[in-house]
C-alpha cells in the first residue's frame, strides 16, 4: 500500500489512530463539470430536486435553486474535491466516467475527450482512481477505447449507466466483461432512479444477475443499491459471491431517517464485507460536505450498529479487496 503512504489524509489518521492504518476509499464520485455532465442531465436533476421539496417555490426561488445546483458542478479539476477529501480523511476516490453520448444530443465533449479528462487527473494525483464507461452500442470503436483506457491509461474498473439505454445483462457487454475478467477489473453499475430526463428501465438489481452468473470471476458493484432497492440488492449480494453493494446516496436515507434501518438490514444478513462506502460527489454537496458524510457514517460505530472492524471494511478494505492492484483479484469472497 505504498501508494497511500504520502497522502496527508492518511498520515493524519495514522497519527490519530496510533499507527493503525485505516483506509477510507470513496467508491463513487464524478468530476463536477458542466462539460462532462450534460445540460439535459442537469435539467432533469434540477426538476427532481425542486419537485421533492416539501414547500412551493416561486419562479425566483426556482431560478435560485438552479443557480445553486449549477455551482455544484463547477470543480472540473477536482480541486474542491481534493480539499474536501483531505478534510474528511478520504485517501482515494474513484472517478466514474458516464457516456451520455448516445442518450443525449449535443454533448460538448467526445467520450474519448471525457476519458482523457479523467486520465489527466490520474496523472496529476495518486488520490484518484477512474472507472471507464463506454456505451456498448458504440461497437468496435467503443470497445477499443475501453481497452485503451484500462490497458494503457490506468483506469482500474468499468462503469455502466443503464439509464442511457442498455441493460447490464445485454450480450453486447460481454466482450467488455471478458476484458474485466482478464484484467481483474470490477464493474460498477448504476442502480435505481436518476435524472428525470433518462428512463429508469434496467436499473433494478435483477438486471445484473445474468452478468454476475456468467462472469463469476468478475466483481460487480451495484451503485447506490445498498440504499436504493436495498432489499433486492441485499438478496443478490447474499447469494452471488461476486456482487457488492455501493452505499453512495445514503445521504438521502439520512434525510429520511432511514439510514440506520438500512444498515441494520445489511449487517444482520452478514453483508458487512459486501458494502462499499461512497458519496456520489458532487450530487449531494448541497446537503453537506465530504467530512459530514464520513462523520455521519462513522457515527454508526458508537451506536453499536457496526463494530469497528466492519466499519473499516466498509470504509475502505472491501473496495481494496476487489481493486486490481491488490492481491485478492478474483471474486473469491468468503473463500
Amino acid at each position, binding site marked *: 500500500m505504498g501508494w497511500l503512504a504520502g497522502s496527508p489524509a492518511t498520515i493524519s489518521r495514522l497519527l490519530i489512530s496510533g499507527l493503525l492504518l485505516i483506509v477510507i476509499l470513496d467508491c463513487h464520485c464524478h468530476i463536477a463539470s458542466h462539460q462532462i455532465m450534460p445540460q439535459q442531465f442537469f435539467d432533469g436533476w434540477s426538476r427532481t430536486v425542486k419537485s*421533492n*421539496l*416539501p*414547500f412551493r*417555490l416561486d419562479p*425566483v*426561488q426556482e431560478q*435560485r*435553486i438552479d443557480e*445553486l445546483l449549477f*455551482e*455544484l458542478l*463547477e470543480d472540473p479539476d477536482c480541486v*474542491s474535491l481534493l480539499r*474536501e477529501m483531505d478534510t474528511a480523511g478520504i485517501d482515494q476516490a474513484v472517478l466514474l466516467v458516464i457516456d451520455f453520448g448516445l442518450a443525449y444530443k449535443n454533448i460538448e465533449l467526445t467520450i474519448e475527450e471525457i476519458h482523457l479528462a479523467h486520465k489527466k487527473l490520474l496523472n496529476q494525483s495518486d488520490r484518484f482512481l477512474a472507472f471507464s464507461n463506454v456505451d456498448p452500442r458504440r461497437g468496435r470503436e467503443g470497445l477499443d477505447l475501453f481497452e485503451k483506457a484500462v490497458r494503457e491509461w490506468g483506469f482500474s474498473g468499468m462503469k455502466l449507466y443503464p439509464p442511457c439505454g442498455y441493460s447490464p445483462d445485454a450480450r453486447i457487454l460481454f466482450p467488455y466483461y471478458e476484458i474485466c475478467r482478464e484484467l481483474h477489473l470490477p464493474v460498477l453499475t448504476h442502480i435505481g432512479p436518476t435524472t428525470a430526463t433518462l428512463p429508469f428501465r434496467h436499473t433494478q438489481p435483477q438486471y445484473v444477475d445474468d452478468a454476475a452468473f456468467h462472469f463469476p470471476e468478475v466483481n460487480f458493484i451495484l451503485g447506490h443499491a445498498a440504499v436504493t432497492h436495498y432489499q433486492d440488492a441485499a438478496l443478490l449480494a447474499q447469494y452471488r459471491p461476486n456482487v457488492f453493494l455501493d452505499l453512495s446516496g445514503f*445521504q438521502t436515507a439520512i*434525510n429520511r431517517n432511514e439510514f440506520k434501518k438500512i444498515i441494520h438490514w445489511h449487517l444482520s444478513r452478514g453483508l458487512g464485507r459486501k458494502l462499499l462506502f461512497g458519496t456520489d460527489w458532487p450530487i449531494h*454537496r*448541497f*446537503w*453537506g*460536505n465530504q467530512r459530514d458524510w464520513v462523520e455521519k457514517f462513522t457515527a454508526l460505530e458508537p451506536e453499536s450498529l457496526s463494530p469497528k472492524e466492519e466499519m473499516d471494511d466498509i470504509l475502505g478494505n472491501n473496495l481494496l479487496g476487489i481493486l486490481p492492484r491488490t492481491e485478492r483479484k478474483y471474486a473469491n469472497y468468503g473463500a
Partner: protein
Amino acid sequence: MQITGLNPDLEFARQTVAKLSNKGLKPEEIQDEMVLNQDLGIDSLQFIRLILELERKTARRIFNVQIIAQIKTFRDLCVAISAV
C-alpha cells in the same frame, strides 16, 4: 458568546429559524451554538427553505456552495449573513 444578541439586524434570522425549526422553540430560545440539524431539527430540505427565505428577506444573494458547506450552527448562519 451571543453574536446575534449584539446585532439586532440579525433578529430576522432568529425568527426565521424558529419558524422552520420543529422543536417548538421561541426565537429568544435559540442559542448561537445550536446546531441547525440536531438541536433545531432543521433537516436538509428545510435548510433549503431557510436559505431561500433569508435571501428573500434580505433581498440579497447570501449563499453559495462553499458557504453552505460551512454552516452547521446558528452562529455560522449569522456569520454568513453578516459577511455579505
